[in-house]
């Protein structure tokens, strides 16, 4: 390496690095730093939600236990569901996307780095807002889908459901700006040559869910606004005596809710589509089919929401349509599953820990998908509606198709993030313990559900034949927890004693493995160019740049390309570190906290604060003008 190159690296580092000070910590806009934080915060929410689940499993281990009151149990399962679905499952994928997407597309950062920081701060503050309720002893207690009119003020007094509505509205801000950021980044920042037909499959899934987020989340916002207005401001949206419609809540909620299932599922399939080919030592089979079925899952996912409501009494026509829609979805999932199986079949699979988790994902997805077909068939759905069968189904899908691929992704990408390898042996142990524990915990729930055990009950009488199944489930849940603990131990162990990973320990094909581990603040010295679907497996030298045209060392800049063919189009100026995203997020926090208690003057202060912090954020800076 010549002296010249190191000087360039030094200079790029000065441009892109955030100073390691307290102010720097709060003002960084580096996507890698934000990605770390997203992953860490979402993982903490996973642990919190997991502990809540274990407390519930202790309560249910035997019949007629009463050390949790019914109200405490209701709050626990509601907080467990909300934490897992909203503050873990989606943010952890955002964390991976934040960290990986700029590296995968060869950009220096996301398209809107400050918005990215804002998205993180609002995510963590909305989670804090939700858990403020736990300290007041007034957590939401209406289940994660909070059906009206049960959640109206009359039947749910206290602040619990206000926290529910406002924390969710707050979170939608974070998720929406994040989705906008991903879409613009993926469309405008791909490395020259990375045409849309050469994009890594993870980008397809992130793109699909980002559009799904933009189109579905407003329904949740509107729903939560209606709920708040009904509870605190005397309107009658869900009050049938005055022309309100209780089903309105369900319609809006599931119009949002079902696409959301794909929001927490598709990026995980995208990650599997990255990991399985690398460990099968061959390109994925049927790349275009996987890409198309990803997009179609997102599209058809908007046409199935009524299948959550088969039991409310709808016309046969509506039910048949949505039943058919729900079964159509399984075709797209099956296409992906068969492509993965074919990839393994035709390749020479290497049984790493990450591959173990990916295979576990495949197995559980198939089980979760098959019992999903049960629930898509209306008569069966009526039979198992609101029983533990549904609990089993949704956990097979959400844990099988989110937690397992996320753990595969941790085992695969953590060496890139930390620069050190995880222990493979401990990783495999962790997998087997988790896999056995998971099936032990959730398979018996199918039987309990078919045997008639309703979900969301704090206890059950003896002699119904449910004791053994529930005890097994509780033991399984704890074994599953131990499996997760093994992975956490593995992570901390690797930070101290892990093998040095090097640039590309897995000999993988995508661009993020072109950078150092952990990547330099500027990623690669030259913006890479791409000549095939598998940049690091072909003969093309990504960083070949004899005239140093693609260094961009005159300030924070990156290259923008056309959205279809990724031809170089323009140079994007990137913002410096700034604290303004945090200020806006804090002002919003004040606003939402004040709204819970209807302190209207404080809410006004929060609004004005948001406004001025926003103006401060957007005001043209001196350095931008001089650049």
């Amino acid at each position, binding site marked *: 390496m010549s002296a*010249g190159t190191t000087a360039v690296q030094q200079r790029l580092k000065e441009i892109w690095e955030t100073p390691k000070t307290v102010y720097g910590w709060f003002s960084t806009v580096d996507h890698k730093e934000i990605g770390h934080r997203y992953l860490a915060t979402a993982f903490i929410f996973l642990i919190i939600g997991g502990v809540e689940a274990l407390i519930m499993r202790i309560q249910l281990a035997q019949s007629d236990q009463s050390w949790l009151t019914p109200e405490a149990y209701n709050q626990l399962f509601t907080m467990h569901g909300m934490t897992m679905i909203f503050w873990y499952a989606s943010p952890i994928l955002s964390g991976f996307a934040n960290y990986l997407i700029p590296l995968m597309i060869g950009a220096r950062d996301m398209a809107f780095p400050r918005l990215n920081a804002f998205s993180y701060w609002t995510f963590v503050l909305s989670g804090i807002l939700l858990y403020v309720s736990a300290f007041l002893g007034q957590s939401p207690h209406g289940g994660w889908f909070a059906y009206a009119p049960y959640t109206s003020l009359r039947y749910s007094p206290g602040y619990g459901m206000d926290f529910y509505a406002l924390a969710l509205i707050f979170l939608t801000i974070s998720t929406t700006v994040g989705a*906008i950021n991903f879409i613009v980044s993926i469309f405008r920042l791909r490395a020259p040559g990375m045409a849309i037909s050469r994009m890594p499959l993870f980008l397809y899934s992130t793109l699909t869910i980002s559009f799904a987020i933009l189109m579905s989340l*407003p329904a949740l916002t509107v729903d939560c606004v*209606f709920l708040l207005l*009904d509870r605190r401001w005397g309107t009658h949206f869900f009050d049938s005596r005055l022309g309100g419609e209780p089903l*309105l809540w369900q*319609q809006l909620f599931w119009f949002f809710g079902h696409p959301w299932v794909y929001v927490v599922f598709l990026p995980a399939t995208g990650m599997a589509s990255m990991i399985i080919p690398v460990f099968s030592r061959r390109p994925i089979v049927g790349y275009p089919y996987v890409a198309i079925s990803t997009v179609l899952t997102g599209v058809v996912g908007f046409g199935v929401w009524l299948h959550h409501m088969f039991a409310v009494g709808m016309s046969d026509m509506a039910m048949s349509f949505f039943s058919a829609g729900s079964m159509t979805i399984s075709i797209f999932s099956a296409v992906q599953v068969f492509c993965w199986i074919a990839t393994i079949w035709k390749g020479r699979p290497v049984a790493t820990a990450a591959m173990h988790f990916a295979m576990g994902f495949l197995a559980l997805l198939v089980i979760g998908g098959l019992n999903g077909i049960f629930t898509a068939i209306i008569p069966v759905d009526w039979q198992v509606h609101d029983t533990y069968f549904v609990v089993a189904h949704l956990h097979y899908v959400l844990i099988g198709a989110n937690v397992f691929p996320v753990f595969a992704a941790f085992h695969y990408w953590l060496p890139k993030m930390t620069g050190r390898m995880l222990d493979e042996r401990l990783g495999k142990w962790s997998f087997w313990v988790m896999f056995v524990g998971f099936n032990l915990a959730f398979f018996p729930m199918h039987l309990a559900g078919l045997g008639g055990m309703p979900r969301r009950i704090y206890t059950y009488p003896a002699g119904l034949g449910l004791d053994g199944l529930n005890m097994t489930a509780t033991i399984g849940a704890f074994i599953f927890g131990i499996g997760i603990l093994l992975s956490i131990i593995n992570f901390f162990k690797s930070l101290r004693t892990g093998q040095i990973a090097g640039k590309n320990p897995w000999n993988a094909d995508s661009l993020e493995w072109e950078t150092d581990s952990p990547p330099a603040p500027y990623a690669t010295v030259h913006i890479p160019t791409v000549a095939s679907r598998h940049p690091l497996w072909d003969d093309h030298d990504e960083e070949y740049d004899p005239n140093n045209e693609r260094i961009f060392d005159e300030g924070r800049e990156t290259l923008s390309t056309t959205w279809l063919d990724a031809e170089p*189009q323009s140079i994007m100026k990137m913002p410096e570190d700034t604290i303004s995203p945090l200020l806006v997020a804090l002002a919003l926090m004040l606003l939402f906290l004040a709204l819970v208690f209807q302190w209207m003057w404080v809410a006004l202060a929060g609004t004005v604060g948001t406004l001025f912090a926003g103006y401060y954020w957007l005001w*043209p800076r001196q350095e*931008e003008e001089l650049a």
Partner: protein
Amino acid sequence: MSFATLVPVRRMSVPLETERGTFAMRLVILTESFLFICLFASYFMLENNKSRWKIEELPKLNFAIPMLVLLIISSLVLHWGELQVKKQRYGIGRIALALTILIGLVFLTLQAFEYRAHWEHLTPYTDSYGSIFYTITTFHAAHLIAGLLILAYVLVLPRYAPALESPYRPFHVAAMYWHFVDVVWIFVVAILYVGPHF
């Protein structure tokens, strides 16, 4: 030792990027459209319970239509202002912007009068019709106020000249949002004000 002596750097000769903000605003408009689609869908769903609505009289058009005309004029004025900015007549552009804000304020004043006239026989507390009617119109008003604040920010920006090659096109992006808010009002008038008459 300066870095330039070590490595010959010839930057790729492409212009500075200016489309990011526009792209993001399109996506904002996409998600905001779905917000209003959900609100209108709720209106239609609640309409199934029409028999329980205590409607004394249908919404009058005497305010809504002039308000619609005002907003369309404001959009035209703003667009004309944007064309002027493109021709580097920044002063005129700023005046057009100020005029747009003024029309927006007149709109809000009219809406206050309209609410007062309406309030006598319908409040949000009357029934689900009152709830959805006031919620949709207030949502629109809130978006209009947001639009006004964005326009006000652009109005006080130090300069519009592209000499600095700002990556964002504040005038254009703010105008996009304003046009969107105007289009929403067309739907509000059609669905909430004109629809019940047929």
